[in-house]
């Protein structure tokens, strides 16, 4: 059984591999893989010019909106004051350089390290408590046979994704707040009220619970798609070999999901330091920054709120560098596990 699944996942891997090759300008899968490295640049350029032209608009957009703004990071090395002129670029040119002073400040700032710690704790908690849930839900939904039931349960699961965080938090507050339904119910029955929303000790769990409620349903879409592509013959063959439900799941379904899980995991790790800006900002005062300050709210607070743009830019830059390191590491781990990851050399 396990033998039969291997080609399956390779086929998966192949399809994902083709995409970058095609857009990268190769001749496509039909021909033998050309010895790209040996063609001169000019020749390759002439051969692929139409394809290159087609990518141009996208490249320009990426340059304009992703790369040009990166240049703004120079303010991290300045004492930037946007108000000394009417033009941002002129302001940058006229702001004094301070070298690494902002970074030095960051590394000495206990609030920054508190934010880093909170961010990492939240990330790991969400990785353990949140990440598996969409997979489980997808498996559950996948096992539902009647299309109607399936559609309805999918709709119910997707719905919370479309609520704004303001709404989700208001709902949680009404249910679990100090004067919420749960607390009043407890009080009416002679117990003490519970202040779930304002307890800094359990804040990380609260945040995770909110994320699960809101977005876990939405997260199953990718897994459902992957499940849909599993060849049903494999299940039949496995059943013929005497595999029960659990064995079929273990040896057919999960291996089929493995590349997707690995990919999402790597992406998630790359995003590790981004743990839900809006959600946390809205609840920052509920428990105080000691428990709720994460890197993104730290940057917001110092930059937008206090107009300490240079300091915030420096903090953002540090965050970016750590994220890059994490995604490279995660990708490496994925490769070691024999998975595709985000990219391959």
């Amino acid at each position: 059984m396990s033998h039969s699944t291997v080609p399956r996942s390779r086929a998966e891997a192949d399809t994902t591999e083709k995409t970058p090759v095609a857009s990268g300008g190769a001749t496509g899968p039909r021909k033998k893989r050309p010895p790209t490295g040996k063609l001169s640049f000019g020749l390759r350029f002439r051969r692929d010019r139409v394809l290159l032209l087609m990518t141009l608009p996208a490249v320009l957009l990426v340059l304009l909106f992703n790369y040009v703004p990166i240049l703004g990071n120079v303010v991290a090395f300045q004492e930037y004051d946007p108000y000394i002129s009417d033009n941002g670029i002129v302001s940058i040119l006229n702001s004094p350089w301070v070298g690494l002073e902002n970074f030095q400040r960051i590394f000495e700032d206990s609030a920054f390290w508190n934010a880093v710690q909170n961010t990492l704790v939240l990330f790991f908690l969400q990785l353990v408590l949140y990440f598996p849930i969409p997979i489980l839900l997808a498996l559950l939904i996948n096992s539902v046979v009647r299309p109607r039931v399936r559609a309805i349960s999918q709709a119910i699961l997707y719905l919370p994704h479309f609520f704004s965080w303001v709404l989700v938090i208001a709902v949680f507050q009404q249910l679990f707040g100090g004067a919420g339904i749960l607390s009043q119910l407890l009080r009416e029955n002679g117990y003490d009220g519970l202040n779930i929303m304002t307890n800094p000790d359990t804040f990380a769990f609260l945040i995770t619970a909110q994320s699960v409620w809101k977005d876990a349903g939405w997260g199953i879409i990718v897994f459902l798609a992957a499940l849909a592509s599993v060849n049903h013959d494999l299940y039949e063959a496995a059943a013929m070999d005497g595999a029960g439900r659990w064995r079929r799941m273990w040896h057919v379904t999960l291996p089929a999901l493995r590349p997707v899980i690995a990919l999402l995991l790597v992406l998630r790790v790359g995003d590790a330091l981004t743990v839900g800006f809006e959600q946390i900002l809205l609840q920052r005062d509920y428990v105080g920054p000691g428990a709720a300050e994460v890197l993104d709210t730290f940057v917001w607070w110092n930059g937008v709120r206090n107009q300490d743009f240079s300091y915030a830019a420096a903090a953002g830059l540090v965050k970016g560098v750590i994220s890059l390191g994490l995604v490279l590491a995660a990708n490496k781990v994925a490769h070691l596990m024999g998975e595709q990851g985000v990219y391959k050399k």
Partner: protein
Amino acid sequence: MTPNAASASFGPSRRSFLASSAVAAAAVAGGMPLLAACGGSDSGSRDGTTSGKDAKKILPAYVASNVVTPDIPSKNGSAVGFTSKLDLAGLKTSVPEKLGKGGKVTVMSPFWGSPPKADNAYYKAMNDLIGVDVVWQNQDGNTYDQKLGAVLASSDVPDVVVVPGWNMTGKIPSAIIGKFADLGPYLSGDAVKDYPNLAAIPTDAWQRSIFGGKLRGLPMPSSYVPNNVPFYRQDIFEKEGYEVPTSCDEFLALAKEATNAKAKRWACLDMKWTAFYAFGVLSGEEKSLGWHEADGKLVNRIETDEYLEALEWTRKLFAAGVVHPDAELGKSAAQDAGPKFAAGEFIIYTQDMSQWWSRTAEQATQNPDFKIWGMDLFGHDGGDPTLWAKNPATIFAFVNKKASESVIRDVLAVANVTAAPYGTKEYMMTNYGVEGTHYTVKDGVPAKTDQGNIDVMNAYVMIASPAATIAHPDFPEVAKGQVEWQQRMGAFTKKSSFYGMQIVEPSRYTNLSNDFEQLEDDFVRGRKKMSDVQQAVSEWRSKGGDKLRDWYKKLLDENGSAAS
């Protein structure tokens, strides 16, 4: 509130603060957060203050205007109060001819509530009256600080930008100096007499409008008496036989008695600001007001024992479980306290004085038993309180530096109408709109219509206002209560060393005390320890607080103390 003031709500408070039809009263209200005050500047020349002879040179002349004699004259720094019936037929005209030249002026201003349509009848009528085509860019007042920094950093600043003092954090004061025009040539000295209503704005409000050595702001004058009133449900107090507390111990005892969580009744919201008053803590509404020279030494409020004692007592209230759970959520929970106060979920809360009127008006028809009243501030030990004055103007309108002279003249024409005193047609139009459309008159008392409540909100009152005025033709007893409260509290109000000065701190110190308000809120809710506060204070000292003290000391030597 003033925003920071009553812990609980940043937003709604200010909304009702401005929504109040007699926004003039808002002048009284004013208000600014802890972090307000002066901010940074990139060059040495921008920080500091302007006073004495230098200020005299640029301050506008003062020409009092006596349109209607107030029923209660100003005393102890109070606003003037009007409690008798307004003669609507005999309203005076304070602007006999249109000063506007028909130009177009864009204004960005904070707005609390839902802005009306751009072409509504109120805006049209006001623009007709002024002779200027004012185009409003209303922004959510609760998140204005997040927007302001970005707009001012852009190259596309509107003709006029309204900036409340509590939004002057970080580098905003530096932006004000860099981006806004010097109005001195149009207003200094006798020049202001072209605009009689502006000439009637008290000088101390103009003094506050000097930024970076130039007269840049059009002020909203206010009383210097503290504006955060501990409100209580007088009807419930009477029914239950509660006595209004006159000391911290009495307050706590009453709070414990009144709380019955099972029945969804708590005593109060966050009482931090009342505690600051009770313990005589230096004002926290603007950074410069937190400094005071005593016995030859300049101290900051956060260094005083009173500060710690006030926080300690507030913490006791939270620990005793007498505070409504909503207050646990802190400031961002900006929920409108009104409905839950009306429902009796809590019976005491601290907010800006303007809510005295707005809550009364809100509940008048549907909840006739409801009665909100302000309790006198008490000394913590039951004696007289020591109160510290707030500044006499807190909201300013600024004109873009790039505006042409004709645009500036048009803006001043707008201000001259909006600053018209009580008893004039211009005041009535600015605060109530058009008769028949926005308000109706019953028995000589104006009452806003539904459309009035939609259209006649914020906007024009933000440009400039007359001397602090309290007038509620619809609820004269509230106006009386407010002015008398101010007068009683005014008797206990002292001015600190830097009272009334508009001070721009050097940029490297502007963010020094930013986190204290948060720390206070964390401490009183039991999330931080007293040692954390003390450590933050000593860090504050070593990170620049002591240097800032030297800087203020120098300023004091140069300008003299404003203390009284």
